[in-house]
C-alpha cells in the first residue's frame, strides 16, 4: 500500500463523524470611516500613509526622496521609473532596485493589508526584493475586514497573490522591533481620492 492510501485509510478509520461547516457572517463595523481605520492600522504596522488627490504628489515625493541615480521601477501609468520591467528576463536582475511603485488592488481597513496579485506585479519577487515600496491605492477600494476581502478577491487564474501590510520587520533579537529584515525597508501608501 502506498503512503497515500495508508494515510487516507487511517483517516477513514479514525475520523470523527458529522460537523457541518458554519456560515461566516460579514461582521460589519460601527460605521467609522474606513480611511481612518486603515491609517491607524498602517501606522501600527510601521507603514506611512499619504492621502492625496493628485498623482503629482507622488512625483514630488519621489523627486524629493530619491535621486535619479537610484533604480526605480514603476508599474503605474503616469509615473516613470528608470527600470523597464518589460526588459527584465530573470527576477534576479531586480536585486539592485531601490524603489518599486505598484498599484494595490484593494486594501483592508482593519489591518492595512493591501492585495496584490501576480498579474499586477510582473515578477512575484518584485515587492519583496526592492529596498523601498510605494503602493498606490484608491480610497474607493477599501473594505472593512478580511471577510469582505475574501469576498472581493477572485482567486481564479491567480498564480500568486499577497497581502502586504507593512515593511519587512523582525523582533527576533530580544523582541526589539527592527524594520527592514529581508524585504522592503519602508512602505508608503498613497491613498487617492
Amino acid at each position, binding site marked *: 500500500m*502506498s*503512503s497515500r492510501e*495508508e*494515510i*487516507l485509510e*487511517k*483517516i*477513514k478509520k*479514525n*475520523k*470523527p463523524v458529522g*460537523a*457541518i*461547516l*458554519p456560515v*461566516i*457572517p460579514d*461582521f460589519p463595523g460601527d460605521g467609522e470611516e474606513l480611511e481612518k481605520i486603515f491609517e491607524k*492600522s498602517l501606522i*501600527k*504596522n510601521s507603514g506611512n500613509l499619504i492621502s492625496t488627490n493628485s498623482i503629482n504628489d507622488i512625483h514630488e515625493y519621489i523627486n524629493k526622496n530619491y535621486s535619479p541615480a537610484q533604480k526605480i521601477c514603476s508599474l503605474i501609468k503616469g509615473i516613470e521609473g528608470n527600470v523597464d520591467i518589460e526588459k527584465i528576463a530573470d*527576477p*534576479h536582475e531586480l*536585486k539592485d532596485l531601490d524603489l518599486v511603485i505598484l498599484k494595490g488592488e484593494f486594501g483592508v481597513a*482593519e*489591518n*492595512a*493589508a493591501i492585495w496584490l496579485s501576480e498579474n499586477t506585479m510582473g*515578477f*512575484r*519577487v518584485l515587492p*519583496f*526584493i526592492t529596498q523601498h515600496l510605494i503602493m498606490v491605492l484608491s480610497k474607493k477600494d477599501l473594505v472593512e*475586514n*478580511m*471577510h469582505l476581502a*475574501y469576498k472581493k478577491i477572485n*482567486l481564479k487564474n*491567480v*498564480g*500568486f*497573490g*499577497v*497581502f*502586504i*501590510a*507593512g515593511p*519587512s*520587520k*523582525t*523582533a*527576533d*533579537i*530580544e*523582541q*526589539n522591533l527592527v524594520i*527592514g*529584515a*529581508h*524585504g522592503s525597508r519602508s512602505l508608503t501608501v498613497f491613498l487617492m481620492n
Partner: protein
Amino acid sequence: MVSHAKNAEKFTKDLEKVDWHDATLWGARSKRDLAAKSIPEWESLRTLASQIKENVLANLDEYLLEFEKNALLNGAEVFWAKDGEEHNKIVGDLLVKHNINNLVKSKSILTEECHLNQYLEDLGYDVVDTDLGERIIQFAKQPPSHIVTPAIHVKKEEIGELFHQYIGTEKGATDPQYLTEAARGHLREKFLNAEAAITGVNFAIAENGGFVVCTNEGNADMGANLAPIQIACMGIEKLIPKAEHLGVFLRLLARSATGQSITNYTSHFFTPKKNGKLYIVMVDNGRTEQLGREDFRNSLKCIRCGACMNTCPVYRKSGGYSYGYTIPGPIGSVLAPGRDDHEYASLPFASSLCGSCTNVCPVKIDLHDQLYKWRQQIVKNGNVDQSKKWSMQMATYIFEHPKLFRFMGKTARLFMRLSPRFLIYNSLNKWGKSRELPDSPKQSFRDWYINHKIR
C-alpha cells in the same frame, strides 16, 4: 525519558534570565489581549474557527483529495509522506534530482519535527534558515525554544558573539539594528544564489489547491519567489475547506501570536512561477493516530500561534527546552505523548491546570482538559516515576480512610509547628524548594465546622 522538572532546573539557574523570559512572553500575551479586545466579534471568530476545524477533521480524507486534485490542476506536484523519515527522503531526493547546491529555508515547525535539517546536512547540504530567529539558533546549533519566536531564549550579547563568529560583525556588538542589518546582507546573498527554497504552510485550501504562508520578515517570499524550485512542507491538518475561511483564521492568527492585526506578508501560492517547479509534501507523522484518539483529536486544530506558550506560567518560567520536544508549552505537552507516552510522560504534569491556555486558544482546543486526561492515561499505563506513583498510592489510601485522614492531618499540623526547619525543608519536600509553606493552622476545617455548628 524527558524529565521536564530536571530540564527546567537548568533554565532556572539564571534567575535574571528567567524573569526576563517570563516578562517578555507575558508582554506578548498582553498584546494579544489588546488585539483580541479590539474586535467585538473575537469570541464568535474563535467559535467559527473551531467549528471549521471540526469539519476539517471529520472530512480530512476528502479535503486532502480535493486539495491534491486542485494542486495538480495548478501545476504543482504533490507527495504524501507517512512519517518524518519519508518526508525527509522526498525532499532530499528532489534536491538531488534537480542538482541543487544552494538552498534556503523559511520557518517550518513541521520540518523541525521531522529533523529535516539534520537529514539534509548528513547528505552534505548547507541548509540556510532565513528567518532571523531560526538563523540565530542554527548558528548556535540549537533547536527552537518557541514556535513563533524560536530564539526567544537567546540574549543579544550571545547573538552578537554568534554573528561575530559566523558573519563577521564587530566583536562585542549587541545593537539589534546593526545585527539585523548584517544578517540582511548575509542572507540576501543566500537568497540570490539559492536554486531551491523550502517553506512551511500555514493554511492549505482544499477548494483551489493553493496554500498560504505568513511572515513578517518576507523571508519566505524572498526564497520561494526567486529560486526556481519551491518545496512546501505541510502537516495534513493544515487543510481548510475554502478561501473564505482564511478570513476567520487570518484575523485570529497574528493577533493571538504577537498582537499584530496581521503579519506584514501573507502570501498565497497557487501555481509554479514562470520556468519554475512547485512541490508540496503532505505529512502524517502521527497525526492520523491522534485523530483516532477521541480525547485528544482536538489538538489537531492547532494553527501554531504560540498563544498557549506565552500565557503558560510553567512555560514562561521553565523555557522551551525543558519540554524536550519540538513543540513546547501546553500544546506540545498534549501532542508529544501522542508520539510517545513513555518518553514524554512528564510533560502533561508540567502544568498548573490553570486553564489559561484554553482561554486564549484561537481555535478553542480544550488544552488543560487534555493535559488532565493525559495524566490519567500516563498513570494507568505505568509511565510515571516511582516517587509520584508511590505518593499517589499513599494519598489514595489516606483519602479512602477518613479516620486515618484526620489522624494524619492532626499529626502533620503538629509536626509542621514543632519540627525544626531542616526536617520540613529538605530534598523530600519539592514544593518547599523555592517557596515557604503557609503557616500551619491550629485546627482543621472539620474541627472548626463542628465547633461552630454546635453553637
